[in-house]
């Protein structure tokens, strides 16, 4: 029924457009008063009125009778016809159709952005409420400061510290890998590579970003982790078969394209006049990059790093496969650790009762994660704002 409703409303809207345009054109007579708006705007005005009528009436019918009912297209048609009939007589030479249509456009744009914002607010609130329920059963102090995470054992223990440390450890390793690799390859692409080289390299690097993280995950678990274990043991180190190092390395590779691609765009946006000024002073290419280009691009590069960190913190699949589920409080990169996202995933897999502390703890973890990435985004935003107007 919905398809028919949309089709019907579109036909009515096109009809309204033509009717409005024709009526306005007819008002244009030699010697008569000038039209305030072009006939097209009268048509657009009538069409937007008809669409609004159809959408409002159609949505009301969906709420009352469900999507399958024949009442939906009927209501939409009645709404459209009613709006059209009410607005059609208003078309006159002095009528400000252009201004009203502009307002309609504005309203549509505001509505679209409101959907995204409201969804975010809704998610935040649902997480916050479930977190409050969780904290009624488990003390926040235990949650924040206990070093023991075992939600399934009896008695269960909910200490976030091992997860937090694991998350930070893996993210740190990932940034240690991706930061230099990404930034240096961005500098190569933006400043040194010839146009042809760049047009080959950039899509290749972005292809790396297109590999699903599940694939990277089993690459980490089946190839990288045994490799690290083998080489570690050959020099006498004890390495867990699932290690933070393996997960961090592969996660680093995952975010290399993110950093390099963003940094490349940012470096390219530094005005050529700054480079020319530096070259004309007798600076070499690397001096120019180090002392002029990178400082000018710094705010953008920092926000690229922040984005990459947020991405690493939120990554789940690679860690599930490569770093394991053992909640060890350890900063040894060779040990098995687990992260917040992995625990959320394992807590909610399978059939769950929604009022046990075990399930609810996922919301608390999600809340912490959310605060974390929010803080990172905020820091990135502030850095960008602080330095944005430096070159102009």
């Amino acid at each position, binding site marked *: 029924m919905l398809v028919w409703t949309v089709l019907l409303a579109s036909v009515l809207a096109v009809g309204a457009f033509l009717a409005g345009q024709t009526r306005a054109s007819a008002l244009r007579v030699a010697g008569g008063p000038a039209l305030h708006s072009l006939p097209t705007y009268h048509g657009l005005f009538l069409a937007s009125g008809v669409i609004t009528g159809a959408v409002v009436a159609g949505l009301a019918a969906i709420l009352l009778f469900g999507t399958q009912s024949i009442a939906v297209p009927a209501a939409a048609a009645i709404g459209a016809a009613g709006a059209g009939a009410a607005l059609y007589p208003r078309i006159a030479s002095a009528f400000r159709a252009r201004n009203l249509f502009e307002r309609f456009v504005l309203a549509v744009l505001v509505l679209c952005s409101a959907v995204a914002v409201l969804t975010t607010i809704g998610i935040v609130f649902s997480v916050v409420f479930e977190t409050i329920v969780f904290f009624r059963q488990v003390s926040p102090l235990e949650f924040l400061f206990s070093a023991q995470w075992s939600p399934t054992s009896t008695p269960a223990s909910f200490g976030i510290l091992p997860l937090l440390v694991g998350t930070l450890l893996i993210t740190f390793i990932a940034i240690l890998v991706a930061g230099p690799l990404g930034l240096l390859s961005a500098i190569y692409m933006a400043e040194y590579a010839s146009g042809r080289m760049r047009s080959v390299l950039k899509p290749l690097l972005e292809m790396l970003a297109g590999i699903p993280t599940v694939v990277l995950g089993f690459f980490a678990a089946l190839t990288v982790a045994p490799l690290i274990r083998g080489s570690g043991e050959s020099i006498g180190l004890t390495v867990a078969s699932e290690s933070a190092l393996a997960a961090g390395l592969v996660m680093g590779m995952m975010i290399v394209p993110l950093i390099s691609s963003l940094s490349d765009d940012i470096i390219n946006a530094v005005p050529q006049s700054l480079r*020319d000024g530096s070259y*004309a*002073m*007798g*600076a*070499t290419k690397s001096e120019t990059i180090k002392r*002029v280009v990178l*400082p000018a691009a710094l705010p953008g590069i920092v926000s690229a790093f922040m984005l990459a960190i947020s991405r690493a913190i939120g990554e789940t699949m690679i860690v599930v496969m490569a770093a394991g589920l053992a909640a060890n409080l350890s900063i040894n990169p060779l040990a098995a650790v687990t992260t917040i996202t992995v625990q959320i995933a394992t807590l909610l897999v399978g059939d769950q009762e929604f009022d046990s502390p075990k399930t609810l703890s996922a919301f608390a973890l999600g809340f912490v994660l959310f605060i974390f990435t929010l803080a990172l985004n905020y820091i990135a935003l502030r850095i960008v704002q602080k330095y944005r107007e*430096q070159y102009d």
Partner: protein
Amino acid sequence: MDMMPQAVVTPPSPRIMAERQVRIEARDVNIFYGEKHAIKNLSIAIPDRAVSSFIGPSGCGKSTFLRAINRMNDTIPTCRMTGDITLDGNSIYDRDLDVVQLRAKIGMVFQKPNPFPKSIYENVAYGPRIHGISNSKTELDEIVEKSLKRAGLWEEVKDRLNHPGTGLSGGQQQRLCIASAIAVSPEVILMDEPCSALDPIATARIEELIDELKQNYCIVIVTHSMQQAARVSQLTAFFHLGILVEFGDTDEMFTAPQEKRTQDYITGRFG
């Protein structure tokens, strides 16, 4: 290319050249941007301790030739050059020449003021730092102060050397760029329409500055303003469609040009 009309080059009169030696000399220079032939068979001799101005309609190649003098065209991949340019008799396109040292000797000021997003002090200290000119902080302080004084900016900025250079007005920014350029003690200063983004008062200050600087430097200035060429320069070169049409004493050029094209341009018949 052989069919190219030859430029009429009036040798600079003895009056100007007598007490000055030739600093920059170009012989049979041709410059191409891809397929576009931007400079055609250009030969010119530019004297020391004087201001030479390049005038001509947009796209006539005067900026292109200016940028060839300190090899800034090297940064444009499609740009190609034949012929030779010498500085004090030594080819600047010599294979063994270090372009970094060449640019330290030939400073450049651009059309749009382009201070770095650093403090005023750091802007001026940039060149001396990369060339290792100063050994100590006091020495660097002296160079910065001296350069800003010569650029006529010291009095305005001495209390805020740590403020960003980009916060200055357009005219101040351009004088800051001139200060940065002279901080590395160049011998030649190239200016690519240095006043086109400035108001008349700031322009007058820059012109005064150019007049003072010519005591010590060989200055080449590209300008769209014929009045400016007449005011600041001792020699004027007129470019048209990539050809150097006429080169000679400024006062003669503006009163009795040898070429009809020059006369048409300076009387505003085209351009």
